[in-house]
């Protein structure tokens, strides 16, 4: 099955990449962007979803600074 994991900085953790992109968009003429957060999308083919959460906790995300969510997509 296919699993999609989304990892992103926890709320309140400085996200300088997001800030940089937020600053760049108006420079291109795109207005009205009030926040940008940049995370990471991980797609995996797995035989079972049993250990996906453990994978997230132990490797895919760093719980000190990141939060994650995952879903089976196919």
């Amino acid at each position, binding site marked *: 099955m296919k699993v999609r994991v989304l990892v992103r900085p926890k709320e309140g*953790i*400085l996200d*300088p*990449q997001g*800030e940089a992109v937020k600053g760049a968009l108006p420079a291109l003429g795109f207005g009205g962007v009030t926040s940008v957060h940049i995370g990471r999308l991980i797609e995996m083919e797995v035989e079972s979803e049993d250990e996906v959460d453990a994978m997230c906790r132990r*490797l*895919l995300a*760093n719980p*000190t*600074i990141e939060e994650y969510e995952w879903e089976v997509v196919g």
Partner: protein
Amino acid sequence: MGGGRVRIGVTVFPGSNCDRDALYAVERMGAEPVELWHADADLKGVDAVIVPGGFSYGDYLRPGAIARFANVMGPLEEFARSGGPVLGVCNGFQVLTEAHLLPGALLRNTGMRFVCDRVRVRVEATDTPWTTGCEPGEELTLPVAHNEGNYFADAETLARLEDEGRVVLRYLENPNGSANDIAGVCNEGRNVVGIMPHPERVSDPALGSDEGLRILRSVLVGAGV
């Protein structure tokens, strides 16, 4: 120590790039450098370990995230938990936080730029094996070169680090947005230290300075040399 020279291991991961400098600095300290290959689950009986800087495993996923599971990390964690002196420099600091041997994490620099400079730092704690040869409050000029050096820990952890005197080095001028100007911290047992500046790059007057030996040579004091 078996009567011979103190043996100091330097881990080598794919993508480490300060390992040669660290091995050279160990030689300059008067200790015996021992290369510790990432695939070997063996510390070769060393007395202390340096986890050097670089881009282990290409910094893929997060800096240090993959290195933390290399074979050599098993015995290294055991060594650290039993009180053995471990110093993580730059990427090595990142590896040690990923391995939960040190609290917190290193975030992207607030300025979004790779910082490559010499910075002034103050030695805040001299009761670690890697700073015991320094004077309390001693100021050093050390090179930094990193993209993720912005130390982060939650407010409770930061307060605890400060209360317990576990901030080992502090920037006089913060180059990366690091919380409380932190350049280095130690674990609860004080034997594991992680610092962003590179003492091994200033280990010889031919490199412009040997101030880094103030830190590195400390471990010999602890070893009774």
